[in-house]
């Protein structure tokens, strides 16, 4: 009976994951990300490069509204660097003593300033399309990290002949429906990395994906390191519980 139960439980779990993977079948490229293992975390240098790609390219259209400038400390930046970065952006504040609204440079406690004041303004500047907020993008798509990477590299110069592109749309290998409003954002050498890494399309796509994976799950490293301790503790406790149970039941025939 125990075997039977295990087999059924396994089949059930497999069923859940295959159920989650259903939908239109588009095979995403599978990348071996540095933070996927149970013990591994982000590469800070990569996150910094990813921030650079986000800042110079994505941020033109996409907001990152759930992330605060102070969170950039996770990427290895110091207080002054974060202040300087935030200072590049203007936020509206107020009202002041005169009752007037005013703009001031952003400070570390502000959230990332959005490129557009509202959705309508964003649509008006983007041919009617709304560039979504990227804070949770990695968690909001199936296989989110690979999906995001695929979005960056999936453009082709020529659409296959059987696809009729709509006005202002671009052909994309991995996007559902294969037509995407976003023009190809990255290509070789779009940014010039300050750390000297060669800015190939692939490198930039991976870096910005890493940055957005961090933005979606800033707790990831803390979560895993606490998780290892909790599981170790429970394992020891389990061994003790089994020993206690055996000792208590030693003289009972059952």
């Amino acid at each position, binding site marked *: 009976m125990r075997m039977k139960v295990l087999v059924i439980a396994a089949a059930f779990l497999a069923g859940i994951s295959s159920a989650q993977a259903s939908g239109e079948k588009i095979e995403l490229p599978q990348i071996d990300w540095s933070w996927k293992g149970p013990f591994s975390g982000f590469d800070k240098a990569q996150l910094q490069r990813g921030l650079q790609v986000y800042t110079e390219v994505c941020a033109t259209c996409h907001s990152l509204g759930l992330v605060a400038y102070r969170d950039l400390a996770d990427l290895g930046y110091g207080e002054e660097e974060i202040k300087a970065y935030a200072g590049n952006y203007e936020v509206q504040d107020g009202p002041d003593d005169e009752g007037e609204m005013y703009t001031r440079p952003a400070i570390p406690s502000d959230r990332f300033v959005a490129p557009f004041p509202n959705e309508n303004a964003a649509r008006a500047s983007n041919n009617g399309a709304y560039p979504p907020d990227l804070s*949770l993008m990695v968690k909001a798509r199936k296989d989110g990290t690979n999906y995001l990477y695929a979005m960056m590299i999936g453009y082709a110069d020529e659409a296959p002949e059987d696809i009729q592109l709509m006005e202002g749309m671009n052909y994309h290998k991995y996007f559902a429906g294969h037509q995407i409003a976003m023009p190809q954002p990255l290509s070789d050498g779009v940014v010039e990395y300050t750390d000297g890494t060669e800015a190939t399309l692939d490198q930039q796509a991976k870096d910005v994906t890493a940055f957005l994976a961090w933005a979606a799950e800033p*707790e990831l490293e803390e979560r895993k390191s606490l998780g290892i301790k909790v599981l170790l503790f*429970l394992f020891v406790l389990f061994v003790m519980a089994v020993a206690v149970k055996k000792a208590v*039941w030693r003289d009972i025939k059952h």
Partner: protein
Amino acid sequence: MATKTEFNNPVVRWVDERLPVFTYLDHEYNQFPMPKNLNYWWNFGALASVVLVLMIVTGIMLAMQYTAHVSMAFESVERIMRDVNYGWLLRYIHMNGASMFFIVVYIHVFRGLYFGSYKAPRELLWMLGVVIILLMMATAFLGYVLPWGQMSFWGATVITNLFSAIPFVGDWIVTWLWGGFSVDNPTLNRFFALHYLMPFILFAVVGLHVVAVHITGSNNPTGVDVQSPRDTVSFHPYFTAKDSVGLVLFLFVFAAFVFFAPNYFGEPDNYIKANPLQTPPHIVPEWYFLPFYAILRAVPDNFIGAWMGFTLINAKLAGVIAMFGATIVLFFLPWLDTSKVRSARYRPVYKWFFWVFLADCLLLGYIGSQPAEGAFIWIGRAATAYYFAHFLIVFPVLGWFETPKPLPTSISEPVLKENS
């Protein structure tokens, strides 16, 4: 509570003479006689009560940080995840706790089905259990709406719309449930209030469930009644020790999900803020509702109407009735099962039907996760028909035809035989 326990501590004695809570605890959780042959499947009731407490505690802490407003709910959950100290831990425990609760309770239910724990004199105990499942489902549904993601919103829309199937007053009831003309801020507010209320009702019913099991005593793998003190051991230390083993193992699995795969049971779409203008491509409920979702969708158009010539019932209403019926039928199980033998160990035919039924439930779960098209529709209908046939045909008929294996004369007998 015939005899009072004597306590040495003067304060405990003073309180106990005036309010015998310590005597009660001593009787029910220390001396309480348990069949000594219980296997680890009997851990799951205790596990469920631990999860319930964990859900209430984490839930109260989350509620201190959560804002039930359509324009702030989604962001407030993300603030919990990012800015509240260990907020991510609280929320992931609560989120995965819902799945763990259902896993544990479903195993508890199937254990009851296998060993016949619903039969006399435990009918009321079983029926309280069915009430608990219904309350759990309502609570889980209400809670899933609170993060105000796409699945929250559209799940709430689909499920509340089911009530529109009620003849004559359906639409009126739906408007009343919503507090408006669509799922909106009033809906979110009341769902939050109810999601906070229901667990305490649930807790009270669990209390009754526990009182009831302490009246009849636990069933056991042989299904044979306890006959003498030789068949039992005291709850403490024997079952506190045995339950601890299961509990720690369970917490290990729970923690593995919370820390290493916290979104395994979730839908990515719920990390997109609710948008009433954009329907997600597939609206799927949480995994623990999938079998019921499959039953809901299984009833074909005009099936009942054509069959019974009864125009009041359309397919939607029939589906809703079938879905609720799938749980309600459990209330009648103690009387639908005509076999006098409790445990499937001594029911050679029922044993097979049990596994077929379990497989049928898992199949329904799979169908519920798939779009309602092609072969899935027919498999879903067949599996639904079998679900009800299991209760309405197999249980009554099997009791008459099946020849059970000879029962042991007591719980101790098979043990003593093995050991001699």
